[in-house]
C-alpha cells in the first residue's frame, strides 16, 4: 500500500480510510448534470485510452470464460462453437448428480477440505498468539522469516519434496521410521493421503496465514496487558481475555471466507499428488471435472463444465449460509 518499510508486527488497524469508501462526486450540481458528465468524460478521454489494455484483458480472459459457462447447458461441439451448440438445459448437471461418481467425489471433496479447514484454521491463530508473546525481537523475526518462506515455493516443488522425502523406498522419513523399528509407510497410499495433503499444507501455509492475526494483535494496546498484569492476571488469562477478543472479528471473517471456499481448495496440489492407487480418496470434484473434460478418449467439455458449475453453486450457497450464521450468532458479516 505504501512505500514505507513496514513489517508485520508494526501493522496497525486504521479506523477509517478515506480511499476505500469512495468519495462523493465532486461535481454534484443539480443543474446541467448530464452536460457536465459529458464534459468530464471528454476531459478524461485519455484515461479511458490508458484503460483499454487492461479492459481488453478483463473482457477476454475474465468475462470470456464466464460467458463460456453456458456450455454447461449446451451439447458443446467444437464445430458449432459455444453459441452454435444445441441447448440441452440441465441435462449435464443431472447426468453428474445421478452418476455413480457423484457421491464419492462429493464426499472426498468435503472430507479433504473439511479436514483442512479444521486443522489449518485454528493453527495460524495459535502461532500468531505465541509469536506475539515472544519478547526477543530477533527471535520473533527469525521465526517469521523462516516460516513464511515455504509460501513462496511452487506446488510442484512441495509435492516433489513429499514424493522424495516421504518415499517408502529410500525417503529420509521412512529411513527414520525403519531405524526406530517401524515398517515403512506409503504416505501417498489411500489411508495416508489426506493426512499427507493437509499436513504438508500446514508446513507450507501456517507461517503466512498467521500474518493477518499478527496484524490484528499488533493493534492491541500494551496498556491493557500492563493493567492486567498489575491486577495479577497471568499470561494465559491475558491471552484469553485480551488477545483472543482482539482478533475475534478477523477470525470470523476468515472463517466465513474459508467455508465459502471449502469445495475449491488445492486443485493443483491434489492433481499432483494423485496416483492410480489413491484415486479412491483423492478424486475430488475439481479433478473429476478436469478428467472428464480432458482425459477421456472424447473430451466432454459440457459435462466437465457442468460439474465445475455444480461446485461453484454449492460454494456460493455455503458462503451465504456461513455469512448468515455469522451475522446471527456473532453479529458480524461480510456483506
Amino acid at each position, binding site marked *: 500500500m505504501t512505500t514505507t518499510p513496514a513489517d508485520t508486527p508494526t*501493522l496497525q488497524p486504521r479506523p477509517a480510510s478515506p480511499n476505500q469508501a469512495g468519495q462523493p462526486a465532486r461535481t454534484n450540481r443539480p443543474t446541467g448534470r448530464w452536460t457536465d458528465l459529458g464534459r468530464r468524460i471528454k476531459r478524461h478521454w485519455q484515461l479511458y485510452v490508458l484503460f483499454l489494455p487492461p479492459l481488453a484483458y478483463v473482457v477476454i480472459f475474465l468475462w470470456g470464460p*464466464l460467458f463460456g459457462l453456458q456450455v454447461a447447458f449446451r451439447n458443446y461441439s467444437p464445430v458449432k462453437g459455444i453459441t452454435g451448440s444445441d441447448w440441452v438445459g440441465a441435462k449435464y448437471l443431472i447426468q453428474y448428480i445421478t452418476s455413480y461418481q457423484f457421491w464419492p467425489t462429493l464426499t472426498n471433496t468435503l472430507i479433504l477440505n473439511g479436514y483442512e479447514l479444521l486443522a489449518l484454521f485454528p493453527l495460524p491463530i495459535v502461532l500468531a498468539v505465541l509469536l506475539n508473546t515472544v519478547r526477543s525481537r530477533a527471535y520473533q523475526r*527469525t521465526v517469521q522469516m*523462516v516460516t513464511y518462506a515455504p509460501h513462496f515455493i511452487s506446488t510442484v516443488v512441495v509435492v516433489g519434496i513429499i514424493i522424495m522425502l516421504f518415499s517408502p523406498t529410500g525417503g529420509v522419513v521412512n529411513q527414520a521410521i525403519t531405524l526406530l523399528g517401524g515398517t515403512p509407510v506409503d504416505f501417498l497410499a489411500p489411508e495416508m493421503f489426506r493426512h499427507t495433503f493437509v499436513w504438508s499444507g500446514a508446513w507450507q501455509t501456517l507461517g503466512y496465514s498467521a*500474518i493477518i492475526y499478527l496484524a490484528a494483535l499488533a493493534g492491541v494496546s500494551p496498556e491493557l496487558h500492563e493493567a492486567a498484569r498489575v491486577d495479577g492476571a497471568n499470561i494465559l488469562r491475558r491471552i484469553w481475555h485480551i488477545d483472543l477478543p482482539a482478533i475475534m472479528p478477523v477470525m470470523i471473517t476468515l472463517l466465513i471466507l474459508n467455508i465459502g471456499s471449502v469445495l475449491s481448495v488445492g486443485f493443483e496440489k491434489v492433481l499432483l499428488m494423485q496416483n492410480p492407487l489413491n484415486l479412491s480418496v483423492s478424486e475430488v470434484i475439481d479433478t473429476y471435472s478436469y478428467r472428464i473434460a480432458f482425459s477421456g478418449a472424447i473430451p466432454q467439455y459440457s459435462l466437465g463444465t457442468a460439474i*465445475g458449475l455444480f461446485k461453484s453453486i454449492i460454494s456460493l450457497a455455503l458462503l451465504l449460509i456461513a455469512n448468515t450464521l455469522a451475522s446471527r450468532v456473532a453479529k458480524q458479516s461480510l456483506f
Partner: protein
Amino acid sequence: MTVSATTTPGDPDVDPRGPRRGTAPSRIRDSRVDQAFHRVNLLVLGVFTLMVLYPLVYVISASVSEPSALTRGEVWLWPVGLNVDAYKAIWESPGLVRGFANSVAYTIAGAVIGTALTVLAGYVLARNELPFRRFLTLFLLIPTMLSAGIIPTYLVVRSLGMLNTPLAVILPGAMSVFNVLITRTFYQMNVPNELLEAARVDGADEFRFFARIAVPLSFPIIAVNMLFYGVAQWNAWFGAFLYLNDSNLFPLQLVLRELLTQSQVDPSQISGADLGEITKKKELFDKLKYAMIVVAMIPPLIAYPFVQKHFVKGALIGAVK
C-alpha cells in the same frame, strides 16, 4: 474493516507499538506461570521453525551428497561428501536447460506484461474524478468473484488459437485484479491531486502526466508487481500442462513434474546395462531429482526477502477487505 501499515520510516529501532509488553521496565516480576509459559513458547516456536527448515536443508544436502551415501541412508541433515554430478547432468541435458530457459523467458514476459496491465488499470481506477470509475472497478471485480473454472477458460484460449504457443502460458493469468487494487491504493496515497493540478497548469495532458510523473513516482509498486508476477509465473505449471503439447515449450516446473512422475510409475525403466550400471544410474537419477527441486525452488526464495513485506501487505488487504 481495514488494516493498514504505519511505520516510522528509517527508524527501525523505534517500535511504533510503544514499549513491548514484557520488555518494558516493568516493576512487576513475572509470575511462575509466565516464566514457564515463555520458556515453553520459545521451545515450541523453535521446534516449529526447525521443522519448516528441515526439508529445505535436506533437499539441498541430498542434491550435493555422494550418491552412494544417499542410497545407504547416511544423509540426515548435512551433505555427506561433495558431489555436484547432478547439477552437471542438468547442465548437460538439453531438455532441462531448455526448461530453465523457458521458465526465465515466461517469468520475464509475465512480469512485464502483468505489471504493465496492472499499473495502467490501477492508475486509472485511482483517479477519483473519472466518470464511471466505480462501474469499471466492479467490472474488474465481479468476474474474479465468480471465477468460471478451467474448461471455459480453456475454450477461450483455444478459440483464440493460442493452444501450444507461449502466449497460452503467459496471457490467461497475466493480470491479477487483487494486485490492481493494491496498486490503485498506492496511487491514491502517493500521487496527490495537487500534483495533477499543477501539471495541468503547466500544460501537461493525461498521457504526459502518467508517463512523466505518475510512473516515475510509482517505481516501488512497479517493482513489487514485477516480483509478484515473476514469482507467480516461475512457480506456475498448470497452464503449461493444460495448453502445451510441445515439450520444447515446457517451463521448468512442468519438466520437474514429468521427472518426478517418471520414476513413480516406472522405477526400472533402464534396461540392458549391467547391474552396477543400473544402480549407478538410479542413484544419479534420485540425486538429479533433488537437484531439480533445488533449481526450481531457489529463485523465489532469493526474491522473497525483497518482496516479503509487500506480500504481507497484499495478504492483509486481500484477506480483510
